[in-house]
C-alpha cells in the first residue's frame, strides 16, 4: 500500500528516546529528580522509548521490503455497491 506507519513512528520514538536518555545522562544526580523519587526517569524511560522506536522502525522496514517483493494485493472490488 502506501506509507507503513511503523517507519515514521519508530523514527519519532527513537529520536524521543535519544533526546530523553541524553538529557537524563547529562543531568544525572541533579535535584530535579527529587520529584520523581530520586529516579532518573529521563534516562530510564528514554531507553525504553528508544527500544520501542527502534523495534517499530525495523519491523516497518521489513514489512515494506516484503510488500515490495509481493504481487499487488487484490482490492475488495468484487461486488458493486448497493443502492445509490
Amino acid at each position: 500500500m502506501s506509507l507503513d506507519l511503523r517507519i515514521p513512528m519508530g523514527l519519532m520514538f527513537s529520536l524521543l528516546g535519544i533526546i530523553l536518555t541524553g538529557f537524563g545522562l547529562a543531568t544525572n544526580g541533579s535535584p530535579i529528580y527529587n520529584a520523581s523519587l530520586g529516579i532518573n526517569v529521563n534516562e530510564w524511560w528514554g531507553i525504553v522509548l528508544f527500544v520501542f522506536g527502534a523495534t517499530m522502525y525495523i519491523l516497518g522496514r521489513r514489512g515494506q521490503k516484503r510488500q515490495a517483493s509481493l504481487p499487488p494485493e487484490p482490492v475488495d472490488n468484487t461486488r458493486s455497491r448497493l443502492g445509490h
Partner: protein
Amino acid sequence: MLNLTSVDWLIMLLYFVFVLGIGFALKRYMKTSKDFFQAGRALPAWICGLAFISANLGAQEVIGMGASGAKYGLETAHFYGIGAIPAMIFVGIFMMPFYYGSKARSVPEFLRMRFDEKTRALNACSFAVMTVFSSGISMYAMARLIQALHVFDGLFHMLGWAPEGIFTFSIILSAVIVLAYIFLGGLTSAIYNEVLQFFLIIAGFLPLVLLGLRNIGGWAGLKASVPAAYMHEWKGVAHASTNPMGIEIIGLGMGLGFVLGSGYWCTDFLVIQTAMASKNMAAARRVPLIAAVPKMVFPFLVILPGLLAIGLPTPHTTTVITRGADGAIYHTTNVVSAQAEQGRGLVPAKINPVTGKPMLTASGQPLLDYDMATPNMLLHFFPTGILGLGLTALLASFMSGMAGNVTAFNTVFTYDLYQSYIHPGGTDKHYMAVGRWATVGGIALSICTAYAAISFNNIMDTLQLVFSFVNAPLFATFLLGMFWKRATGHGAFVGLITGTAAAMLHHGLTLPIEANPGIHGGWITVVHHYPSDMAQNFWGAIFAFSANFIVTVIVSLMTKAKPESELVGLVHSLTPKPPSENLSWWRRPEALAVGVLLGAVALNIFFY
C-alpha cells in the same frame, strides 16, 4: 510552578514536525476521493484497531477519566467494562458485516441504503452539527488547560507577547496543525496520527502511574489512602446508596452498558469510519475486537492518576524553624495556596474568582476541581524532559479528538449532504476538492464553537446534553434495521424523533438530588429525583431507547417494507455468512471476541 525548559519544547516540536511530516508524506497517495475520505479502504487491522479507540481518546477520556477516578474511584472503570467492551464485541461480530459489506461510505449512507432518504438526512444533519461542535469543545478544553497549566506563559514572556493571547494562540495552533495534516492526507493521515497519539499517551502516562504507585506504597498503599469504596468496581452496586456513583445495577447495566455504550460504539461515525477503512471484511470485523484489548487496559493508565491524586497527602503551608550557627533563628515557610490546601490530595478546591474563597457544596465541603487531578499529577512527579513528553501526550489526545471529528464531518458533509442534495453527479476530483474545503469549513466552525464556549458558560454542558438526547435512541434504529427485515424507513424516522423527544421529556421531568432545576433537568416540573446526574443520564438513555424501539416497531408494521431483494447485505437474515471458515480457528473474529470477553470478565472479578 511550571518551568518548561528547551528539552520540553524540543520534544513538543519533534511531535509537531512528525505529525505534519506524515501528512506531507501521505499527500501523494491521495489520488481519488476514496483515498481521501476512506483511506482507500486499504489499512491493516491493527492500525484501524488502535485508531478506533484513539479516536475516542480525546480530552474527555484522559482528563475526564482522571477526574472521575478522583471523584468516584474504580467504579469509573465501568465506563470501559460495561459500556464499551460488549458494544465493541457486538459491533465487530454482528454489525461490521453490514457496515463494511454494504460498501456504504458513511453511516448516514448506510441508513439511506437500509431505510430511506429522510432517515439519512436526519442522521447526517444531526451528526454533522454534533461532530463539529465536539471538535470545538475539544479545542476549547485544550486551550483552557494550556492556560490553567501556564504551559505557554514562559514562551510568551520570552517573546514579549501579552499572556491574554495564550488562549487564541492555543486554538489557532491546534487548528492549523490539524487542518494541515487532514487537508494533505485525509482519513489516512487522521488514522496514522491517532495511532501515534495512542502510543504517546502510553509513553506519557505509564511512567506517571508507576511513579505514583511507588510513591504511595504500591497497590496496598493506595488501598489504605483512599476510601474503601473507591477500590471496588462492583461492590455495593445493587443499590444506589451503597456506591459512590449513586447508581443501581439495572440503571448501570441497561443504561450504560446497553444503550449509551452501544449508542456510541456501534453507531457513531467518528469511530466506525476507522473500521470502514480496513482492507477487507475479516480485518474490519477484527478492528473493534483489537481495539477492545487496549480498551481494557487503559483504565489503569487514565483512572489511576485520579485515584493516586486523591490518595496522596494534601499539601499544607508549613513553617520550619531552624537555628543557625550564630544563634539566629530562621523561620522557613513553605506557602501552599488556599486552593491547594482546601483540596484533597493533589486535587485543588475550586476558588470563587470574586471572593477568593473556596466554593462550597450543599453540605458545606469545599468543591473540588477534579479536572485538575491528572494535570497536577504530571506536574508533581515529572521533572523537565519527561514533563515535555507528558504535556505533548496531553496535547496529542486533544488533537486526536479534533481530527477524528473533522474527518467524520468532511465525509458526511461531502457525501451525504453535498453530493446528495447540493451537487449530485460531479466528478471525483470535484468531490475531493469539496472534501478539502469542508475540512477548512469544519475547523472554522469548530473555532467559532470554542470561542462561543467562553461567553456562554454552560455551552459545554448544554451541548453534551443535546448530544445525549440525539445519541441515546440511535442504537435501537440500527439494531432493528440490521436484524429485523420488516423495519421500514417511516418507522426509523419517526422512531428516531420519538426517541430524542423521550430523552428530552425525561430530562425535563426529573432532577438529581443536589441540583437546581435548569440545565440539570426538571425544567418542565420535577416528577422524580435521582441520587446523581449519572443515574439520571442512564435512565434517560433507557427511556429514549425503549421509546424509539417501540415506536419504530409499531410504525414499521403499519407501513410498507422494502422488497427483500433490495435488503440483501443489509439485514442479518438476508445476508450470506461472511467467509471466515477458511481461516484457522484462532484467527477468526469470533475466537478473538471470546478471548476479549473472558479477559473483561476476569478483570471485573479481580476488581470486585
